C-alpha cells in the first residue's frame, strides 16, 4: 500500500515537472529569438570568412573564386545522387570534394565547426529557395 503511495507521488511529481518543463519550452520571447538569430548569423559570418579565405586549402584558391555568393552550390538539392561519385551524398561531401580537388587541401571533419559554418553560409545565401532534394 505504502509502495503504491510512493509510486503515485513520484508519478505526480514527474508529471508535474514535465508540465512545468513544457510550459517553459513555450515561453520564449522575441528577445530570445533575436539572440538565437544572432547566434546563427555569427556562424554564417564565420562561414563567409572561410568561403573567401585563401587558407582553407593549400594553393590559395578560395571557394568564392568559383562560387561568388555561394552561387551554383545548390544546397536545396542535397542529399542527391552524384553521378561522378556513384552514390547519394550530402552537401558536406561535395564541400570536402572541392576542398580536396580545386583547393588541393584536406577534407574537414563532417561534424566540425568549420563544416557547419560553411553549410550555414551556403544555405543562408540560398534562403527562400524551395527544397528540391535529388534535383540535377
Amino acid at each position, binding site marked *: 500500500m505504502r509502495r503504491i503511495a510512493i509510486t503515485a507521488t513520484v508519478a505526480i511529481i514527474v508529471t508535474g515537472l514535465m508540465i512545468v518543463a513544457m510550459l517553459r519550452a513555450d515561453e520564449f520571447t522575441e528577445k530570445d529569438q533575436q539572440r538565437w538569430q544572432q547566434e546563427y548569423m555569427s556562424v554564417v559570418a564565420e562561414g563567409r570568412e572561410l568561403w*573567401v579565405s585563401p587558407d582553407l586549402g*593549400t*594553393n*590559395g*584558391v578560395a571557394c*568564392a*573564386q*568559383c*562560387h*561568388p*555568393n555561394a*552561387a*551554383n552550390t*545548390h544546397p536545396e538539392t542535397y542529399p542527391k545522387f552524384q553521378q*561522378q561519385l556513384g552514390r547519394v551524398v550530402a552537401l558536406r561531401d561535395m564541400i570536402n*570534394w*572541392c576542398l580536396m*580537388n*580545386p583547393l588541393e587541401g584536406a577534407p574537414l571533419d563532417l561534424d566540425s565547426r568549420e563544416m557547419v559554418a560553411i553549410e550555414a553560409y551556403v544555405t543562408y*545565401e*540560398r*534562403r*527562400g*529557395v524551395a527544397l528540391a532534394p535529388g534535383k*540535377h
Partner: protein
Amino acid sequence: MKNQNRRDFLKTAGVLTAVSCLPINLVELAFADSRKNFTFAYISDSHIQQIEGSKFVRNWDRGLIRAVAETNLLDPKPDFVVFGGDLAQLGKKSELDHGAEMLAKLNYKTYCVMGEHDYYLDLGEYWSKLYGDHYYSFNHKGVHFIVLNSILTYDDWTYNRWPTAEQRMNEMAGLDNPNGSPFMVGEKQRQWLSKDLEKVSKDTPIVVFSHSPIQKIFKGWNFWTDDAEEVQALLQPFDDVTVIYGHVHQIQYNQIGNISFNAVMATAWPWPYPRSYAQNKDFVPKLTVPMNRANPFHERDATGWQLIDLDSGRVALRYNLYDNTNRTVAYNPLTGRPEDKDFQDKAKRIPSQEHY
C-alpha cells in the same frame, strides 16, 4: 551577297561542329568572298595565381597552356590573337611574368586588354612594361579595333580608401566583395575615344575589346560598366559595332541598337550566371542562351578560348570548350542580332542550359 556569305558560313560552321573532335588544323573556313573575311583568336581570364616561389596553381596554368597550344595549331592561321585581361590573379609581377611567358609562346601578334586582376596592385605599371598602353586603337583589313581599359573606378576608391596596394588588389579581386567598386571607362578615356572615332567613317566596322561588359548586367559581381551608356552613345552612330568582353567567364550576348555584345569564356574557371544567385533579381540579356552547365568533376569543363571570324565586319564567335560541346554565336543579318547557331530556338535547348 552578305546574306549569301552568312549562309555559307553557317554551313561551314555546321561542319566545324561535326569535326570538333578532330585536331584543329584540319578545319578550314571557306567563304564566298574571302577577301573581306579574316579570323582572330581570343584568349581571356587566365588568372595565373602564385602559391609561393615558383609554385603556381596548376589548374589555371593548364587552361592557358592549352589555349596557347591549340591556337598555335590553327590552320588557316588567325591574323592575330587578343588576350582579354586578368592574366594574373593578384597583379603580382611573378604572376604577370609567369603568364607572359606562356603567352609569349603564341606564334602570332598578340594584343592585350587590361583586367582588374592585372591592375589594382600597381595600377597597371608592370603590365605596361610587358604590353604597353592601357588603351589604344588599330586598323586591320578595313576594320577599326579599339582596346579600352574599362576596369577603372572612382578615384577616391583607388587612391584614398586602402592603406596598402595589396589590400586594394585583394578587395577588388573578390568578385562578390561588397567593398569592391563599379568598373568604368572614365571621362578621360571617353574623350580619347570620341577623338579617335572622329577619323573613322560611319560605315567602317568597329570592334571594341574591353574587359568588363560595356553594358549593365549585374552590379553585385561587376558584370557592369558604370558609364556604359556614355560609351555606347559614342559607338551608336556607326553602322556595325561589336563589343567583345571578358570578365564574366561565361557565354553572354546581346544587341543594343547598332552594337552587338559578345562575352568570351575564361581559360581558368567558369562563373555562375547572375540568375543562380537567389538573392539577386538581375538577369543576363534575354537573348543569351546560357553556356552548358559545368561539371566540376571535369577540371577544364566550361573553360576554353574563342576563334572569331569577322565576316564583312560582323562577328561569328566559335567557343572552343575543352570538356564541353563547342558553341557558335554569330551575328544574324536577317534578325540584326547575335544568335546561337544551334540553340537559339527555345525548343532546341538542352537540360544543361538551365541554370538555377
